[in-house]
């Protein structure tokens, strides 16, 4: 008996250590980003850094203003949500409530597959198909633009939105729906007036998760957005926060490199905010 207890404690200890590894990683990354990101912000000045409209990191008089990147990331994410959420949300209502079993299997399989495609593949397809397509469709000189990035991002966030929404919709107690149907409401009416409101915190969490995925994506948008540090325009070439770090890191030096770390810090703060929002929604859903 005593031996067994010792063994239990031992196993608990191991699990605790494994858990602490994750926490340690988060702390380490946070600490590193703060330490690496602060010096450049101090040198450039927080106002000039966050609200400067010009980025020319290798010029003789370098300018490090990241407002174009911040706005691009915000607009790009908002655009992706605008397109991705209605599609993803309605798909999930269909799959959770209306679809016949056979179709459901096929569609949810396809959605899972979409989640598994590496982002560089999205980027490649976007570069070879989407960018030339946008160019000829809208008669503009070049298709690499914020619009192309929004399209790619809205497809990329679909799986997270669909999967999380389905789970939320399926968790709605069947009695709610039965009651509504018994009162004479039509099925579709029931789903939108009873099931969806009951699952709203889960659906909100799905949207926030989509936002997180969209704002953190680098590879795919780098290949379709053109990467010129302009203030965002729908059909203009733009650079996101993520791609600003990724595109210049390899040859950067000195203050330029430090400023890239500062951009990463800003991005990190954005993602922390989004995570806080996610936790808020999930908690409210439980109560």
């Amino acid at each position, binding site marked *: 008996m005593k031996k067994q207890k010792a063994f239990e404690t031992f196993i608990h200890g191991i699990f605790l250590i494994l858990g602490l590894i994750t926490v340690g990683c988060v702390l380490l990354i946070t600490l590193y980003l703060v330490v690496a990101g602060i010096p450049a912000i101090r040198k450039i000045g927080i106002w000039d850094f966050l609200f400067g409209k010009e980025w020319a990191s*290798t*010029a*003789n008089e370098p300018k490090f203003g990241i407002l174009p990147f911040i706005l691009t990331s915000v607009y790009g994410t908002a655009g992706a949500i605008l397109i991705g959420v209605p599609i993803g949300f309605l798909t999930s209502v269909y799959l959770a409530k209306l679809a016949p079993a056979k179709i459901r299997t096929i569609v949810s399989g396809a959605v899972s597959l979409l989640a598994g495609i590496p982002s560089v593949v999205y980027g490649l397809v976007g570069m*070879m198909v989407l960018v030339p397509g946008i160019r000829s469709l809208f008669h503009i*000189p*070049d298709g*690499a633009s914020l619009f192309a990035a929004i399209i790619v991002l809205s497809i990329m966030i679909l799986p997270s939105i669909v999967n999380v929404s389905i789970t939320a919709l399926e968790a709605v107690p069947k009695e709610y729906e039965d009651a509504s149907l018994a009162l004479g409401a039509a099925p579709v009416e029931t789903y939108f007036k009873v099931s969806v409101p009951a699952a709203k915190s889960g659906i909100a969490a799905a949207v926030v998760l989509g936002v997180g995925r969209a704002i953190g994506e680098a590879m795919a948008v*780098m290949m379709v957005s*053109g*990467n010129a540090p302009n203030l965002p325009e729908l059909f203009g070439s733009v650079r996101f926060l993520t791609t600003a770090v990724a595109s210049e890191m390899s040859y950067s030096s000195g203050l330029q490199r430090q400023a890239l770390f500062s951009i990463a810090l800003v991005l990190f703060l954005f993602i922390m905010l989004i995570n806080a929002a996610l936790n808020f929604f999930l908690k409210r859903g439980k109560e």
Partner: protein
Amino acid sequence: MKKFMTLALAAALAVSALAGCRAQQKGGTVSTDGSTSMEEVIGVLGEAFQEKYSGMTFTYNPTGSGSGIQAVKEGRCDIGLSSRSLKEEEKADGLSETVLANDGIAVIVNPKNEVSDLDIETIAKIYTGEITNWFEVGGNDAEIVVIGREAGSGTRDGFESITGTENACKYRQELTSTGDVITTVSQNPDAIGYASLAAVSDQIKALSVGGVSPSEATVKDGSYVIQRPFVLVTKDDAELSDAAQKFFDFALSDESAPYISQAGAVPVK
């Protein structure tokens, strides 16, 4: 059996220790410092050098041409690497240059583009946004889509310094690799871009500049102007260490030429 194994192992260890010793005696360190554009060339040469002379250590510090020249002047490295010729005042400071190779940068357009020759002033005007339509240079009536590389890239630095457009280029797209530039130009009939000569393929058309089409031969004889030298910088008054001298001779020998070509530059020899 066990005893035998132990003995064999000990013997092997002793031999390897001896070998290590010998390598140590033969070895030395060559430190280079400078141009990031020369990264590939110097990387390939360094590897080949270390393969030929086992035990030699070769280091390369990618800091940029200016810092490399400064470093060799202050004796912080054996050989400085510069992707531009030395200025007169640098030569007056007791430095000398040896051209290792030349690097050609091709200006590329889509194969459908009717324009096939531009002079360097026109190219500069296109990149600075003074000329924005292909019509102005004898092509179709279409807006020119200017494609370039990201800030800090050696190719961008080289192209901008040769065309005199430093920090004045108005890029529509800034891509992060030669491959991306070529793919994008091959997809867009109105695009213009630049890429290392070695990367030019059938997918795109390399423009001739002032009537001279880019090739290994025209880069070598200097008639193709969008090129720059890769230079080894040494100090006049200090002799190279044994190891550094070996590397210097190796880099300039016929033997190293294939490695330089492999890295995309045009060897002088």
